[in-house]
Structure formats: structure tokens, C-alpha cells
């Protein structure tokens, strides 16, 4: 139980982490029971909170860290990282 997983990702979609992208991210994160956080430039927010994510400046090309703690954390981080890396299925 005391595990932790993290992964650094690059924002691929042109609009960055805007409201819609953030909502998709949160929905995906909510599928997992583990705690998920997102970190950028020393600021860490709850990744299951859309408001939290919106408060991060994460424009196109910037990098951020996804950190998960708890059950299936590895799986969660992988899934979330994939979502970011594919640019939230947004047409580029």
C-alpha cells in the first residue's frame, strides 16, 4: 500500500490544459482509488480537482509531473500520462 508512482509528461495539445482537457484528465483520474497529484514548477495540486489543475500554467510544450499514491498507482499514472501524451485526442 505504501507505494508511489510518478511520471513526467509533456503537454502535446496546442491549447494546453484548458477546461475541457482538464475535465478529461480528472475523469480518468477518478477511475482510480489512489491519490493523484500534479506538479509543475514546485506547485503541487490535487489532480482529481479540475480547479486545481486549471490553476497550473501548463501551456503547449511544458512539462509536468504526475504523482500517484495508493492502489493501482502505477496503472493510474500510465493511463494519465498516455492521455496527456496523445494530446487529449484533440486534433493538432
Amino acid at each position, binding site marked *: 500500500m505504501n507505494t508511489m508512482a510518478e511520471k513526467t509528461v509533456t503537454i502535446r495539445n496546442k491549447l494546453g490544459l484548458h477546461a*475541457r482537457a482538464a475535465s478529461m484528465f480528472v475523469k480518468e483520474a477518478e477511475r482510480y482509488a489512489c491519490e493523484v497529484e500534479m506538479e509543475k514548477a514546485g*506547485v503541487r495540486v*490535487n489532480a482529481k480537482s479540475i*480547479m486545481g489543475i*486549471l490553476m497550473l500554467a501548463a*501551456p503547449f510544450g511544458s512539462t509536468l509531473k504526475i504523482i500517484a499514491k495508493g492502489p493501482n498507482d502505477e496503472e493510474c499514472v500510465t493511463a494519465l500520462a498516455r492521455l496527456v501524451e496523445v494530446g487529449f485526442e484533440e486534433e493538432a
Partner: protein
Amino acid sequence: MSAERNMTRLSGEKIVEGIGLGKVFFIDKDFSLIPHLTLRGGQKAREKEKRRFMNAVKKCEKELTAIMDERELPKEALSILEAHRMMLVDPTLTGEVGDTILERGVNAEWAVLSVFEEMAERLAGSGADYYLKAKAADLEVIKDKLLISLLGGAGHASYIKNLPEEDFILCAHSLTLSDLSSLAKNKHIRGIALEAPGGVSHLTIVLRSIGLPAVLGLDGLLTEVAGCEEIVVDGLSGEAVVCPTMPQKIAYIQKKKVYDEYFDRFLTDVGDPAVSQDGAEMHIGANIEGEEEVDLAKRYGAEFIGLFRTELMFLEKEEVPTEEDHYAIYYEMLHRAHPMEVTIRVFDFGGDKEGRILATGAMGLRGIRFCFLYPDVFLPQVRGLIRAAAFGNLNILLPFVSAVDEIREFKAILKEQAKDLKLEKNLKHIKIGAMIELPAALFIAEMLAREVDFFSIGTNDLVQYLMAVERQDKALSQYFSHFHPAVLRALYNLSHIAKKYKIGLSVCGEMGGDPYFTLLFMGMGINSLSMSPIAIPIVKKIVRSGYLEEGKALLNRMLMTTSEMELREILEREMEERYPNIFRKAWIDNIRQNGG
């Protein structure tokens, strides 16, 4: 939440003189009243307020879900709505608002505002981000939704009940007349500070009739008051001091004392008639908005009610007032004012007098024109007036008259309704007057004089229509001048005509209560003025220490002067020299030395 703010001094237009100090009571720009309330009743009250917030969240979510379910929306729009829904129920947001309510003991609306304000600051500080604006707009949408829901739909009305229980200053972008009339009844309101320009608007008129210190046109007020506890409204200098320091507060309390004493001096002999040193009498009446102001008018020395504006009292109503509504108010009015004469003006909707019942956008659809067009609205008023006429001295004033036919038509309606009510005998108690405020009325004044018992000059509208000036527009304000030769000559002509036809004449607009014109009016032969109660004591003072001959001399100078600027200079200089203790500049300097 917000750190200690520093003192800020803002400059605006002085609308009502006097000094007010108190807590900031903030009304948001977009929603009328967003108060800053401290909850009473301990932890229980806080828990209850938090539940009210959570219910509002649920209600908003339901609304959003319903929109998503019911309408066939493109995928794009749906995903935005879904994002908004998630923002709304977001644990960070609801947690922070909930904590703010519980920890600070403030009302839900204020908690929402401060949490969103902090988020907006965090967002702005999050670094260069080219989609920052979009995010801020999303936040705004959620904030607005929550506030609307908390405020109970349309509005602010519910708020008037939740005003603070201690001295407060109302701070807002602008105010509707209905908000203002409710606020005026509050015991703790000490002043009004608004961002919107005042100029000569109905808002200004009502503010003057209420007599609370007021400063308008304060740019940036709402930004400054956020996070501030206290504010001073200085209606003498036209300033607002946000977050005053302790020494400033002391100085303002002192200045207020000096001013209040100064003003009280005028009240000592206010009940005496206004007769000049050489025996010319000036009759002075009051313009009022509600029957409860009759007592205020009497206290300030009014000899009659020169203008009772009926449209304002119905602004809060959702439905068209009935004959009974009208009757009850007019009866009360005449009864209270007896034996004073009471001039009741029939509905004058239009201009900036917004109302929920009737709003006319058209430039010329006002006053009697509007009344004729909507008999369902007008006839109950006429009937109420006829019934009330038995209980006092009633004058009915018709606004926006531009033709003799309109007077005749009104008389026919009056007769017909009296007959229907079997109250024809009441008609002998009623005098009928025409409001002179349109250029057309000026040119046919002699014809109108044959049809009516009196003229009432509405100087605000008269200047507006003579000069073609939109009153609210700051860019045009230099053209809105009471000193324009056209305006002064119009008044002088009307005075002549009224005398020739032996009918009454009273100046009831802003100019009537402006002490700079009092002597000149005497010189013109005008012997009746009606004004905000608060203006009466000073005007009476001027009449009493003046001479009719001085007025005539001023009139001659006026007739020989062609420039608006020169006229203004002459009048201001002459009056300030003659009455150094009365005119503003002199006594403001005086107060400055003594007090603030």
C-alpha cells in the same frame, strides 16, 4: 484571505453633501447586492450557511445536467458544459468556500466571491499562459452561476433584508432606483459610493431627496473596496477614502461634526416663512418620493409638496398597481400633508427610470404620452386620485406635455372617470397643471396657460431637451448647463406668461433647489420653488437675507449677457460674495481649517 490593504483616496462627483463613515457594504458589479455579512448564531449558523451553499451547488449542477440532457448540443459544447459541471462540484472549490464560511463566519455569497477572487489572483500569478483568459472566463461563468443561485434567481431584492446591523456605506457600481428606495429605509446606512457617474439623473435626484452623503463617479471603487473593512464618503470634497487610517478617521469624525453643526444652524428657523429684506415672499415646497417623506419635508420647512413622483413608488411591484393601491397611497399622502397643497405627478416612466413593470426604451414615449397609450396602467391612477381628492388639496401634474389637446384629453378622462365613480364633486378640489419640460411646450406656453391652473417647470428635462443632451453621457456634460442663456430666458418668459394668465408657477427641477439661482428667480418674479427637503433650509436663508432689488439687478445682468460661461461666472461670483457663509467654497474651506 486578503492582506491588509493600504488607504486609498478616490475622487468623484459630489452628489449629496455630508460625511459618512462605516463598514464597506459591497454590491457586485453584475449582481446587485452582494453583501459582506458576519453570521450571527455561532457554529450552527455557519453550518447552516454552508448547507445553503452546498444546496446552491447542487441546484446549479442540476441545471447544467438538464441543459446537457435536453438539448441536442454538439460534442464540443457538451464537453465544455461537462467541464463546467465538474468545476462547479470540484472538491477544491466547494472545500475552500465551505471552509471560508466555517472559519470566517461569512455569508455564502461573500465566501464565493473571495474564493474566486483568490483563484483569479492565483491564476494571474501562474505565469505566462496564452489561454489564461479562457480559464478566467470559465471561472467567471461558474462564479456567476453560483451567485445567481444563491441570490435566488434574479436578484438582489432578497438582500435588502440582510443589511448589516451596524453603520455601513453602500459601495456599488451602480444602483437601481428600486434598490435605492429600499436601502433608504435602513437605519444603519451612512453614505453611498458608486462607480457610475451621477450627473443629473434620476438616481441623483433620489439620492438628494434621501439626503445621505453620496459620491458618484468613483472609478475603480469596487477593486479598491475588496478586502477593505471601512470607508469614508466625503460628500463635501467628492472623495471616498477606502481603508482610512486611524488619524484620518478621527479627522473625518471631526469634519462631520463641524458640517453637521453648520447644517443644523440652518434648521433653527426653518419653519419661518422665507421673506426677503424688502418684503418679497418666496414659497418653498418639497419634492418627495414617498408618503413617509412628508414628515421630513415638514421638518426641513416645506410649505407645500411641490412634486410627488408616483412612478418611483411602484418600482418594486411586480404587477401594475391597482386603483386601491393608488388610492391608499394618495390618501395617506394628502392626509399627512394636510393642510399643505400636494402636487402629484402622474406616471412619468421613461428615461432612466427603469421599472420592472414598465420599461420604455423610446426617447419620446414618456409622461402623458405613455399614460394615454396604456389606459390599463393610467386609469387606476386617475381613479385613485379622484377618490383621494376629497381628503386634501390635490394638484395633478401632467408630465411631458407638448400640446393643448393633451390637457383637454386628460380633463375628459378625469370627468368620465369621476362620473363613473359618482365622485364629480371631488373635481372641484383638483387643480390641473402642466409640466413645462419640452421645447414645444415653451412655444405654446400661452395656449397651455389658458387650459391649466399652474405650470411646473422641470428644469432637468427642459435642459436635456432644449440642449439635446443625454444626461448620463459624461462626454456631453458641459452642454447640460443651467446657466445657458436659452434656459434662463425660457424660465423668465414662463414667469411672464404665468403672471399674465394669473396661474401658478413653480420651479421644481434641480435648479429650484440650487442656491446660486435663488436671487435670480426672485428677480424674474418667480415666487414658488420646490426642491429636495435637504435643500430647503439654505434656500430659505438666502431669501431672508436677500433683497428683491438685488434679484432684479441680477436679472438685468443676465439679460445683457450672451455667454453661458460669463453668466455662470457672474452668478457664482455675486452669490459667493453676497453670502460668504453659505456658499460651498467658503464653508468647505472653513471646515477644512477646522476639521479634516
